[in-house]
């Protein structure tokens, strides 16, 4: 099976970026009753800054498991993950939590906004968690909400916002503390084609920067063309790594 289908130029262009995540020999087993299921079979992969990397694959292929391990919220059964040079699973629990707080922004599929605080406060959560005073954190979040065109919704509660607006708040929350790695799982699954594209464009604008890496898990083929790089997972193995989708998908 062909693993890389890129032209040499593409590869060179990619290698220019700094390595954000260096994953080596990632294995993950899950206990299912008496038996153990191996979900990831020794994955080696690098994610580079300045790129929008898609992780695609069929349902159950291990996409979510892989990015969870890459961003430090799920322990691998075996293997090593370096994020910006830090061996994250060698850190203590508290160090790892603080590492995430400083370096990683998350966009969850279900947004998971806190229902009783307004949009600005929700977007400011990472800053507040870092210890910033609520007012200054809100002010900083406001700038981002303005940039995302929902500055006028800042004082609304999440349930007073449309799905797309909530997602923008979630994006603002992922970016407000200027993390170097942004991770999204199925950001467009709940949206129609147009809004899905708009969100991805938006993410491109705000989440992709020279020194910032962005990983997006999706099986939404409507947006594959927006990727800088696509990793295809099949049954816990990377079967393709290139700028475009392999033929037949």
């Amino acid at each position, binding site marked *: 099976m062909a693993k890389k289908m890129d032209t040499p130029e593409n590869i060179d262009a990619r290698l220019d970026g700094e390595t954000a995540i260096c994953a080596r020999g990632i294995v993950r087993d899950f206990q299912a009753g008496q038996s153990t299921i191996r979900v990831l079979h020794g994955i080696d992969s690098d994610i580079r800054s300045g790129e929008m990397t898609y992780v695609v694959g069929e349902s159950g292929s291990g996409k*979510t498991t892989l*990015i*969870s391990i890459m961003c430090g*919220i*799920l322990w691998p059964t075996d293997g090593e993950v370096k994020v910006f040079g830090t061996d994250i699973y060698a850190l203590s*629990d*508290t160090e790892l*939590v*603080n*590492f*995430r*707080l*400083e370096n*990683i922004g*998350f966009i*969850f*599929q*279900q947004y*998971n*906004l*806190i*229902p*009783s*605080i307004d949009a600005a*406060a929700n977007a400011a*959560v*990472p800053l*507040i*968690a*870092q210890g910033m005073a*609520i007012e200054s954190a809100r002010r900083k979040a406001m700038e981002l909400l303005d940039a995302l065109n929902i500055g006028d919704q800042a004082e609304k509660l999440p349930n007073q916002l449309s799905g797309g607006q909530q997602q923008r708040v979630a994006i603002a*929350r992922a970016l407000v503390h200027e993390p170097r790695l942004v991770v999204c*799982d199925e950001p467009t699954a709940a949206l129609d084609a147009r809004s899905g594209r708009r969100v991805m464009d938006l993410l491109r604008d705000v989440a992709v920067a020279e020194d910032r890496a962005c990983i997006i898990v999706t099986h939404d083929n409507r947006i594959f063309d927006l990727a800088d790089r696509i990793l295809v997972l099949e049954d816990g193995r990377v079967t393709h790594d290139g700028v475009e989708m392999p033929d037949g998908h």
Partner: protein
Amino acid sequence: MLWIAIRMLTGDKQKFYGLLFGIAFSTLLITQQLTIFVNLIERGASGVYSAPEAEIWVMDPVTRTTEVNYAMPPTALDEVRSVQGVEWAVPHLRAVASVRNSEGDLEGVTIVGVDDATLIGLPERMVEGDKSILLQPDSVLIDDVGLTKMFAPGENPIGERLELNDQRAVIRGIADAIPSFTSQVTLYTKYSQALNYVPGTRNRLTFVLAGVRDGETVEAVAQRITEETGLKALPREELAQSGIDFIVENTGIPLNFGITVALGFIVGVAIVGLTFSLFIRDNIKQFGALKAIGVTNFKIGQMVVAQATLVGSVGYALGVIGTVLFIWGFSGNPTFKGFYIPWQIPFVSLVAVIAILALTGWISLRSVMRTEPAAVFR
């Protein structure tokens, strides 16, 4: 983060009020029931409290309380007076009798006979009239709560005549007394007069009240009286305690109140536990997101503690205020006369509230702690 925790809690109005209600209800039930309990059983000592001057009570060795007593020979008074360290000693008579009330019904009364010369043995304060009025012939004082049993509201008892053991008694004043456990009517009169009101047996001296000389301790003098006279001499607090113990041992009151207090606690645990775990479950995704973003378990713990503290302190305050309003609202009712809230009781209910929240908070917290941050991507 604590701000977020508090907003999470208060933002969910239904559960927030549910939690407040649970805590306030438990606090109210526990505080109020314990208050009534303590005040009720303390009435077992009302006979002692109503004679504030007495430092030592001397009685027959078989006497258990001011109500459950056995009379001594009249010579006991002089025996007590001759014990070293006794500053003064006066006779005190307590006996039960029956009297007809204004409607002609028979009413059980306690007759208290106090020293003719000094009037030692009377309650401290009067509601109406002066203590010295007892020096007039045939006069008795009635206690203010007993009054409500004998007379209709608004009826003036002063000057009313009663018949006791075929003797005439005229009510000439109202004493401000602590009601007895049974709220039985108490009539105060001179010792010499009381002897006439109580059907005659040879011995009718039920107690000798004594005071202690400067420089002597109450305990030592009581001990000396016991040794030298063969009578039982108790410091006032000890006899008061015996009265309380007697109620505790001989009525179902502690059990009944104990059950109610336990129910208050259990209902509190149930309401608060259910609501709290529902609240946590509703917010488990948000907590998971916070954990993924980078909030340590320790901070999550602080958040839950802050939520519990807010609910606990507001709910507790409401419950205690409720109890105070209850006691205050019923303070005019003779049944609740003199009720007060000893500081130990709010303390006990505070401990109960803390226990409820610690228990339920801990259970809820564990589920938050166990939530894997990776769960947010599922």
